[in-house]
């Protein structure tokens, strides 16, 4: 399955027609929202917790160069190695070089959206390296040859029946729809791979400048396994993931599991500092940290969009988004779906890509309400809409038809006589064409560009008589009513 970028409308139309997907998404939205609300309600002070988390990220963003340098020297002091990648190609090259030099044949991977972002798996596979996704959801979609549809619940678009079919087909096991048995099948399949793997690859939820540590948050134990069994550990992080100290870690850890999975704490949070030490019998002998820019420094330079770099990838915005819950993650066409995905896709990819996504929002604001680091997502989406139409650098120029349309519309709005005349014409046209076509909500016989535009829109019905004609009759009535009310006073 290939994701189709810049195709949100068609993708969504397909998703909305998929009854099974709709049922899966509806169930997911209901359950995840309830779980988050319950776990947040147990916080001593929700707003204080969010303010602290936001402050952590804003302080870090303001001091990124300093923190990254401190992180680098402390990782090295702990015996680790640090690699810098300006873009995805360099990040892939770094990981491939590490793997080749050590003759790595098989890799176990913890779920990492950053690894998805740089397209790591195809690159490793092309080099003849076996890649084993080990998070249950990632394992399922790897078997199904699909990309993740959610940043923390990657296979949530599939039902247990679909997973059962997949396991039977791909693994040759007896069909079962029991979640516990399905989970156990994956446990057995993957355990041998963990113990035999030459390299473990993970992301990083945070990196701590003061201690040179990375923090990994998970529930299954697959990330612990990937950082315990193989002889080499490579962690890939976006450069915005660095925080100053352990107090900062606590402020984020206090909210990430709650907002992500409705948990007070995830089953595992691991603070990894360098490779295993002399005399230790497990843990990797080598630790590599790959620090990735890939568009992040450009976002930092944008005073409006930079708050997107606060994102801690909890997924709450998508779990509460009416658009995500109707269209599913694949419709967004790239790695990051939902409201934050609509912001990140356009910002990371640029060159005109992803610019349909900011328009795929009702601006209802629930995403901003649930964001643990208070990213004002509707504001960022509106800013991107403006950029898509006004800023040549974003290459999202409006088409000539749209330009003409908005030009005519703005001229009409400052010329009332012309506006009335145009409305009169439209009314006449409607009474003629109405019986033919307007019943379907569509104006007939439009030129191709306009027809495409109109296909997605329902024309507002024009009043039979315009307000300007009604006003002379309405005014005396209103005046009389006002007089009566005044008389009573």
């Amino acid at each position, binding site marked *: 399955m290939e994701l189709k970028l810049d195709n949100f409308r068609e993708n969504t139309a397909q998703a909305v027609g998929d009854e099974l997907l709709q049922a899966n998404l509806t169930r997911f939205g209901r359950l995840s929202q309830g779980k988050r609300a319950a776990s947040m309600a147990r916080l001593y002070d929700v707003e204080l917790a969010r303010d602290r988390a936001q402050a952590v990220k804003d302080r870090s963003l303001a001091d990124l160069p300093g923190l990254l340098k401190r992180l680098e020297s402390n990782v090295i002091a702990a015996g680790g190695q640090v690699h810098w990648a300006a873009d995805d190609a360099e990040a892939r090259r770094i990981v491939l070089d590490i793997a080749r030099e050590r003759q790595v044949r098989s890799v176990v991977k913890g779920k990492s959206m950053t690894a998805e972002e740089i397209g790591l798996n195809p690159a490793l596979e092309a080099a003849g390296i076996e890649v084993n996704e080990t998070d249950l959801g990632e394992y399922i979609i790897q078997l199904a040859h699909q990309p993740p549809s959610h940043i923390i619940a990657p296979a949530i678009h599939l039902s247990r029946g679909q997973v059962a079919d997949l396991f039977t087909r791909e693994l040759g096991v007896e069909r079962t729809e029991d979640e516990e048995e399905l989970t156990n099948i994956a446990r057995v399949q993957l355990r041998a791979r963990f113990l035999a793997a030459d390299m473990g690859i993970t992301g990083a939820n945070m990196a701590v400048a003061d201690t040179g540590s990375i923090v990994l948050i998970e529930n299954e*134990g697959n990330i612990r396994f990937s950082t315990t069994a193989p002889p080499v550990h490579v962690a890939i992080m976006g450069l915005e993931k660095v925080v100053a100290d352990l107090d900062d870690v606590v402020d984020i850890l206090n909210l990430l599991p709650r907002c992500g999975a409705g948990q007070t704490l995830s089953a595992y949070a691991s603070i990894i500092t360098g490779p295993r030490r002399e005399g230790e019998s497990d*843990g990797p002998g080598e630790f590599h940290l790959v620090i990735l820019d890939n568009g992040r420094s450009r976002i930092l330079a944008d005073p409006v969009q930079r708050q997107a770099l606060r994102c801690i990838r909890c997924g709450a915005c998508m779990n509460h988004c009416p658009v995500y819950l109707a269209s599913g993650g694949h419709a967004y066409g790239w790695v990051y779906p939902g409201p934050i995905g609509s912001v990140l896709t356009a910002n990371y990819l640029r060159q005109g890509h992803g610019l349909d996504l900011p328009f795929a929002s009702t601006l209802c604001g629930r995403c901003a309400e649930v964001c643990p680091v208070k990213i004002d997502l509707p504001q960022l989406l509106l800013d991107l809409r403006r950029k898509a139409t006004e800023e040549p650098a974003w290459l999202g120029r409006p088409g000539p038809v749209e330009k003409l349309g908005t030009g005519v519309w703005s001229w009409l709005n400052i010329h009332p006589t012309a506006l009335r005349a145009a409305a009169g014409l439209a009314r006449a046209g409607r009474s003629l064409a109405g019986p033919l076509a307007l019943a379907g909500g569509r104006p007939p016989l439009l030129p191709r560009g306009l027809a495409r535009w109109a296909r997605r829109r329902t024309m507002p019905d024009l009043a039979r008589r315009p307000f300007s004609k009604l006003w002379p009759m309405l005014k005396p009535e209103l005046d009389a009513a006002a007089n009566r009310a005044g008389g009573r006073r």
Partner: protein
Amino acid sequence: MTGNHRQWIFDRLAEALKAAPPAAPERPEPRPLSPDPADDPWPGLEAAVREVAGEFHLVKSAEEALELAAQLCDRHRAAPDTAPRAALWDCPLFDDLGLDRGLTERGVATILPHLSEDAKAATAACDLGFTGADAVLADSGCVVVRARSATPRSVSLLPPVHVAFVNRRDLIAGLDSLPGTIKAMADEQGLLPSGIHLITGPSRTADIELVLILGVHGPKTVHVVGLDFDPSGD
């Protein structure tokens, strides 16, 4: 992009911050996010451990601790006709309790994985793993363990059952107290242990239809054993 990626990134970051310096807010007033533990912290901890599908036990003497450990081994043995196998940390707490000897006397096949030739394989073959927590968060049942040469990471991960012992003095209120606890683990050079693991209940997933399943790649069962006495006898 070719050339020095590190320099390129730092140049871009400096440029970005210079053009429009972002606000850097202070940490909002540090008020407690978790309540202080009660005088008797055990009932609260028990409730927290149960809530994350763990099991809690309280013992009042070394003898009781050994009896409980042996019972757990018996309960979780893989087959009724073979001795239960347990991987143990080699730590002062277990020395004080006499855990290795006590379990062996009670018919448990114990190993100290760091002394095995293949520590990971040996640990993976065990029915239970026994660790001593550096700290436990009273409000969430979260067990904090650290990797050292005689206290391998695998023991809390590979066997299907994890048993963590905790001293009363190692209970901390919650996440707010965690930074201090972790900083205290640093060596003279300020270096933290290679692996510090926060473990809250059994390994779990909800990746299929958000249905909670315990025991994916880590233990399916986690026992937290509170020691309501001073095992060092001081």
